[in-house]
């Protein structure tokens, strides 16, 4: 992990309030792993003072890509960056997804902006079999950028399966009978909690990418604790021990 200043090469709006920001960084392009994140200073002033954590969305050649939804002052500033601007970031941070040499069937489950880390994971999974489930409240909230033939669910049924994405995946579990599957998920906490329950009761291996407010992003502020499944009087830190955890290890 290093502090580096990188140059913005592109900012693309992919749907309402959702953007991709691309930056030139051969070092990070080489060293990022899917599921890791960068802690980004969006301005040079004290507003906002703290960095903002973003999962690496993809790596294309010497470029790194972040996906973000505008929902506050920090992301608003980020959405106004232009090619040639510099971004100050600390990366690569945290522990990403663990991909085995023989991945079997990989099942991606994403909710809303939780789709962010999966273009890179999909790329890393290469030619292996990947099934992707993507959910959102309504059709406008479903983000499918960089994903392979996603199966879609919306809470209001405006497109795809009507209901939440965990229920959709759960309804298709019989399809995977007899196959070795591993789930990779990211999304809002209620979604991760429901999925975690499903994975544990079904005995399916899974990794969950979590999020939290954090200041430093590398373990010194202690601002992002997460409870362990087997309590031993200590928290794990999302920034350093995560953000990706085995579904068995943490209490969401």
């Amino acid at each position, binding site marked *: *992990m*290093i*502090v580096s200043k990188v140059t913005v090469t592109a900012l693309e709006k992919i749907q309402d309030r959702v953007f991709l920001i691309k930056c030139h960084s051969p070092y990070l392009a080489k060293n990022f792993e899917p599921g890791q994140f960068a802690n980004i*200073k969006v301005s040079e002033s*004290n*507003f*906002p*003072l*703290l*960095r903002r954590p973003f999962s690496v969305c993809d790596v294309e050649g010497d470029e790194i890509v972040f996906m973000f939804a505008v929902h506050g002052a920090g992301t608003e500033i980020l959405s106004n960056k232009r090619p040639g601007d510099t971004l100050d970031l*600390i990366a690569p941070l945290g522990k990403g997804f663990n991909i085995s040499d023989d991945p079997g069937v990989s099942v991606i489950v994403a909710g809303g902006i939780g789709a962010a880390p999966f273009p890179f994971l999909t790329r890393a999974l290469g030619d292996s079999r990947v099934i992707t489930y993507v959910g959102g409240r309504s059709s406008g909230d479903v983000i499918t950028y960089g994903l392979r033939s996603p199966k879609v669910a919306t809470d209001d049924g405006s497109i795809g399966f009507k209901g939440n994405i965990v229920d959709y995946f759960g309804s298709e579990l019989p399809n995977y009978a007899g196959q070795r599957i591993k789930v990779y998920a990211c999304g809002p906490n209620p979604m991760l909690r429901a999925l975690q329950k499903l994975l544990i009761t079904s005995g399916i291996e899974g990794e969950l990418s979590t999020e*939290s*407010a*954090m*200041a*430093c992003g*590398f*373990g*010194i*502020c*202690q*601002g*992002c*604790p*997460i*409870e362990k499944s087997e309590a031993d*009087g*200590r*928290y794990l830190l999302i920034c*350093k021990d995560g953000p990706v955890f085995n579904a068995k290890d943490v209490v969401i």
Partner: protein
Amino acid sequence: MKTDLSVNIGGLKLKNPVLLASGTVGYGYEISNFIDLNTIGGIVTKSISLKPRKGNPPQRIVETPSGMLNAIGLANVGIEEFISEKLPFLAAYDTAVICNIAASTVDEYVECVRLLNGNETVKAFEINVSCPNVKEGGLIFGNDIKYVAEITGKVKKVADKPVIIKLSPNTSNISEFARTAKENGADAVSAINTLVGTSFNIYTRRPNIFNVTGGLSGPAIKPVALAKVLEISRKCDIPVIGIGGISGWEDVVEFMIVGASAVQIGTLNFVDPTAPQIIVDKLEEYCNKMKIEQIRSLTATYELG
């Protein structure tokens, strides 16, 4: 000629006046990925208590204008693991290790000091009587001058290293606390700990941090910290370590001018972990430019009226 950056704070010798504040660098390991700890005057470790403490549940931090609120709740590994697992890492560096101690009772402070006496890596104790985020100890001690007197006296009686009392700004007369610390033997005071603050979500009407209130830090508190350091400096003859919202070398100079003998860098470490080393370099440049031969000559050189 080369500027002498060294300072001496009540017997604690530092190669330069830049310390890393307690609770903002853990036990030094993570930040060593970004800076060479050998270049820093010293590191004040995360508060250590006699037994491990889990700390507060999330959410522990929230950003505020030019600052942040934290309510970590003194999460730490406890003194036993601190000595066996954390100190050996710091021992390898040529930087002063100052152990910050937090406790719920007076006896617990004394016991922690006893356990660290004789340890060659630890060069001084910073006694945290001012954590705003725990129920017992913390602010109850820091706001009660009798407790500050008792803790300082009893700790000083057993300590074999310089004792620094970390003062709370959440009081109207910080210099009285500094005087009490001095009268009971403290070698220095550090000021300020965080200011009590809170932040609410206007849609849910719920607090943004679990603990309801937290400690405010960052550039927002620098003017308050400067005023407190100046007050202590004017009213009390004890070395002061200035803390509060330092975001660059200029702020270090400002703290020294109003009375600080050294400073601690805190929240800035979260934003730019490379900053402390840059600040040391820039301080040297400033001294050279201003023809200051010894940086310690800057302390309390304010001119009033």
